[in-house]
């Protein structure tokens, strides 16, 4: 069972998570990072591009240059939400992507990576997770990005949609008490539970920072 974040006397921020909670958060963080990379066509290993840029082969160098310059328009609905158009004007939006999308993606991927590292370092069982202020910032942003992806999968579009989803889930549970659950329903129950855990954790960290 998770315990909320609190500020410790030494200034660090700590919460307690059990092994399963850490594993789940790590998994959804990894999935979010994989989704961003796949949708935007970002190589998992940035060194590959860097090597290509330093290559003796002029064609490879040219490829690397284009790969670096190309800010692919997101196709996945959740990635669209993480990398939204910055303007109504399509030209201005494309220009903004060209200049900033790679940095934005790098930042999001670094935050997700950092959170996975922190959770990994905290060990497999029930344990304390300790953050300094910079790590807390990475945690807030990463939790938020993962919640955005989960919300997209739950089709949350308007204020109050999550309450509706939860209400439908409870009604579904009552109706299905006797019978077996559909696989789809089990899947979305898990997404709802993870979304609630991440929301709670993010809110608790914000309060501890306040």
């Amino acid at each position, binding site marked *: 069972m998770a315990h909320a974040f609190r500020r410790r006397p030494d200034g660090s921020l700590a919460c307690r998570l059990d092994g399963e909670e850490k594993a789940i958060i790590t998994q959804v963080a990894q999935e979010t990072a994989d989704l961003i990379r796949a949708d935007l066509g970002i190589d998992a290993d940035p060194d590959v591009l860097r090597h290509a840029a330093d290559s003796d082969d002029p064609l490879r160098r040219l490829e690397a240059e284009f790969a670096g310059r190309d800010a692919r328009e997101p196709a996945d609905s959740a990635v669209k939400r993480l990398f939204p158009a910055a303007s109504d004007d399509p030209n201005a939006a494309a220009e903004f992507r060209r200049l*900033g999308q790679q940095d934005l993606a790098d930042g999001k991927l670094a935050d997700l990576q950092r959170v996975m590292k922190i959770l990994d370092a905290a060990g497999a069982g029930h344990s304390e997770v300790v953050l300094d202020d910079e790590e807390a910032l990475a945690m*807030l942003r990463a939790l938020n990005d993962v919640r955005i992806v989960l*919300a997209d999968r739950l089709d*949350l579009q308007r*204020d*109050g949609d*999550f309450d509706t989803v939860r209400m439908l889930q409870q009604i579904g549970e009552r109706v299905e008490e006797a019978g077996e659950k559909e696989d789809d329903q089990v899947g979305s129950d898990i997404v709802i539970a993870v979304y609630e855990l991440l929301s709670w954790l993010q809110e608790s960290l914000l309060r501890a920072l*306040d």
Partner: protein
Amino acid sequence: MPVELRRAEPATGSLSDPSGSVQVRVETDGPWRTVVWNDPVNLMSYVVFVFRRHFGYSRLIAEQLMMQVHDEGRAVVSHGSRERVETDVQAMQSFGLRATLEKAGED
């Protein structure tokens, strides 16, 4: 933003910023502005945190802007040169807020 988690007790934070500095950088005018849009995911407390952290706004200003986003669907959170507004939009997006830039006077 709309998602306000159940609170055990009423909001504890006071509305006034203890630092007292009304750093209303809701900036000197410029021809561009940063707009933040409502969405059903971001926690109210997170949006206030982001506005305070990035713009240095007092708690009061940050809460007013957050409520404006929540109630009206959008709020102008900074003005300035195009370059500056681009930086602000990029920062808001890095926090996962839905932000756009627009030229002042266009609606």
